[in-house]
């Protein structure tokens, strides 16, 4: 019988109590236990960013965080960006600027974009590119993703 640990975590504004195994990652628990499948599994080594979520206001690769570590933390996933069914400005901007192709990397991209905008009110192009470098997009939407972030920063939305 695998030892489990109780954790209390706020996910997208909702307080949750979970029992998690010590060796399960945050990504595992978000997807399998909470049913939030926006965060994706891809490289599992912290390179691709498809699993990016926000933890206590900072983006992390959830594949490199053990679920037990998030006890007491506040998490935001892509499912928590829209409020009352209304898309967040960054989500609208991604759609507007054609930043979504296959879409698999997009939840992670959105989390990093949101965090970047919280950190830099008026980011330069270089700051955007550097801030987003931890999110790979094989479809190659980087320019459109950048356009979307800059558009939100400039208040186009």
């Amino acid at each position, binding site marked *: 019988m*695998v*030892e489990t*640990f109780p954790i209390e975590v706020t996910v997208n504004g909702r307080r949750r109590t979970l029992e998690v*195994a*010590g*060796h399960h*990652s945050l990504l595992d628990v978000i997807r399998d236990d909470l049913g939030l499948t926006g965060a994706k599994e891809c490289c*599992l*080594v*912290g*390179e691709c*960013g498809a699993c*990016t979520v926000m933890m206590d206001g*900072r*983006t*992390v*690769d959830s*594949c*490199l*965080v*053990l679920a*037990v*570590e998030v006890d007491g933390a506040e998490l935001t996933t892509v499912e928590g960006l829209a409020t009352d069914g209304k898309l967040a400005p960054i989500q609208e901007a991604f759609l507007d600027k054609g930043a979504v192709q296959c879409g698999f990397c997009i939840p992670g991209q959105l989390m*990093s974009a949101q*965090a*970047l905008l919280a950190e830099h009110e008026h980011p330069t192009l270089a700051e955007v590119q550097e*801030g987003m*470098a*931890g*999110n790979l997009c094989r479809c190659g939407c980087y320019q459109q993703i950048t356009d979307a972030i800059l558009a939100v920063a400039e208040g186009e939305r």
Partner: protein
Amino acid sequence: MHTFAYARPASLSEAVALLDAHGPDARVLAGGTDLIVRLRDGSAAPSIVIDVKRIAELRPGIREVDGRVVIGATTVMTDVAADPLVRRHFPALAEAAAVVGSVQIRNRATLAGNICNASPAADTAPPLLVHGASVVAEGPGGTRRIPVDELFVRSGVTTLARGELVIAIELPIPARRIASVHVRRTRRRGHDLASVTLTCGVDAAGITRLAYGSVGPRPVLVTDDSGVLVDPAASDEAKAPILEAMFAAASPSPRSMRAGPEYRLAMLRVLGRRALAEAIDRLAAGE
């Protein structure tokens, strides 16, 4: 991942006791960006993982204490890179911390963890060497300070004794400011493990400190106090043999996937020259 016991000690003594009890069967979990990869691929198979993030003595934060800048062991790279004290006194360290992985990695990876991994390619190692950093280690025998230059043995191996835990990193604020710069070679502009890392620091007394990594089993620190390297009147021909001598300790592995040994040695020289010039400029600019 294999299963393991998970402990989250609330006190330093409890953590030390656990580490001492389990020895090599225990792994310390700080940021996890290295450990969790290893847990998944099986290259680390501890029976217990000790999460040190709740221990008060290791708490994140950067403070000036008695002429030293003290960095708590669980301070993450993002905060090291942004810290005004670090940027003012140890600019190469801020630069190095800013290129460890991506934003997501830097939000979790700790400076202490990076040091204790003892990867020869660790970007933070050269700046710490140049700036004469030490780690504060707590163990069953008490507290001791270990200069970083005496900490690295080879990849994955440090001189930490059984049961010892790094609780802080200390960098002395020198009487004579060291203007430093960190440079590296990678395969792409996006975040990447370096195939050569190098920090150069110069001070007004003409002492040049060079530390470089990823070209041998551990990062190397060499110092030149002839003053020639920072002398504006000295020619490139005069500087070249001194620099050459400083690179003599480099022995890059022929097996690396990132770059071949000949290229790395050549880049060491290019980076050394460029970093030296930049450091001299920074010294002059009074940054």
